[in-house]
């Protein structure tokens, strides 16, 4: 049973049922990054999926843009407590990118330009749940929000949606990423409020 703080009334949001526990509605798009924003030139950009057998599957920027695109509208939830509803993105589904990748891996470790990484079960990247996104709200994705391209996995806390995405390593064994080694939850389901290790 929670302890009441006398005098606190709070402000109930009309969108409350769309907010996971402990989240509040943000109108703007806050930024959270652990270091300087990397500048990633498009002419050298590649995105590589590497299987557990070490087999690489790579796409250049032009090759990525030539793939079928989707325009998901999704709610996003940051572990720092803000949520943003009905965000609109454009990108390529991971189902498309993984279609010809032969794997029996259960886990994925996502790598970024810069030193960032994050891990998640491979099944969380499949079945229309994840994209490599390069446009947000009708515009090219800004560098501070992860441009040129970021992973978008909106059903997990937003640190799993790695900015400046560079590749995905498929693994038989789960391997923790950047925040996951620094006390944050290994899975990060906002609806179960899995913020920190052990939640």
């Amino acid at each position, binding site marked *: 049973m*929670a*302890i*009441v*703080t*006398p*005098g*606190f*009334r*709070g*402000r*109930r949001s009309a969108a409350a049922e769309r907010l996971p526990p*402990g*989240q*509040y*509605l*943000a*109108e*703007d798009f*806050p*930024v*959270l*990054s*652990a*270091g*300087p*924003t990397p500048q990633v030139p498009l002419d050298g950009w590649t995105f590589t999926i590497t299987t557990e057998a070490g087999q690489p599957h790579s796409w250049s920027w032009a090759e990525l843009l030539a793939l079928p695109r989707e325009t998901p509208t999704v709610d996003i939830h940051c572990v*720092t*407590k*803000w949520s943003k509803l009905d965000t609109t993105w454009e990108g390529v589904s991971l189902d498309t990118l993984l279609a010809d990748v032969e794997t029996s891996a259960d886990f994925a470790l996502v790598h970024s330009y810069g*030193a960032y990484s994050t891990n998640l079960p491979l099944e969380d990247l499949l079945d229309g749940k994840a994209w490599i996104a390069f446009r947000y709200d009708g515009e090219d994705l800004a560098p*501070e929000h992860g441009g040129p391209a970021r992973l978008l996995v909106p059903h997990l806390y937003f640190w799993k949606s790695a900015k400046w995405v560079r590749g995905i390593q498929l693994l038989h064994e789960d391997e923790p990423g950047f*925040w996951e080694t*620094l*006390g944050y939850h290994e899975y990060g389901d906002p609806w179960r409020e899995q*913020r*920190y*290790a*052990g*939640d």
Partner: protein
Amino acid sequence: MALPWRVARLVARRDESATARTLVLHVDDWPGHLPGQHVDLRLTAEDGYSAQRSYSIASAADGDSLELTVQLLPTGEVSPFLVNDYAIGDPIELRGPIGGWFVWAPTDPRPVLLVGGGSGVVPLMAMLRTHRDIASRAPLRLVYSVRSPGDVVYVDELKPTEEVDVTLLYTRAAPPEWPRPAGRVTPVDLGPSDPRVRVYVCGPTGFVEAASRQLVALGYDERQIRTERFGPSGSQG
């Protein structure tokens, strides 16, 4: 293993500026914290409604005592209560300490540069206070950017010493006769660079982006720059 919710009580408070107030909390069996870490607060209303927010810790480790500095966001949900209405002796739920990245290790002998914009100075103050409390010999420099003189918090503790250098930047209005004209942070404020320096940058997104871009261009080691975005994420604080 899970981080438990603890009950904290307000034992004292201090005005830091017209819109910022420090809350001194007592938390039984507080495990201690490193400078730069934060806590989550959970406020619950009589009818069971609750709201959570994260706040950086402003104080150095000090037994069961913990200080947070809350910036008032007039249209926010939580900060007006914490700044104006939260009463001495009342309970609040808290868990932490949280964060293992934006922290300064007190034993680190390397030079440190702290770059804070607005209320982003709060976790940097925990680093400066820890540095002072343990009499660290690591050279430390604080570059602190505020809009105008009335926005400076911790004003009595910003005096330079032999190990600590403090540079105040005013972006909108500087005090009379201040040597630097009012304006946003520039490379001149952040230099000269030294790749050995560990850098912590905290503030609103625009400030952190500008400062960290300048630091990298100046020749600071990108891998030694740690950032944290802090402060209002719109009108909701």
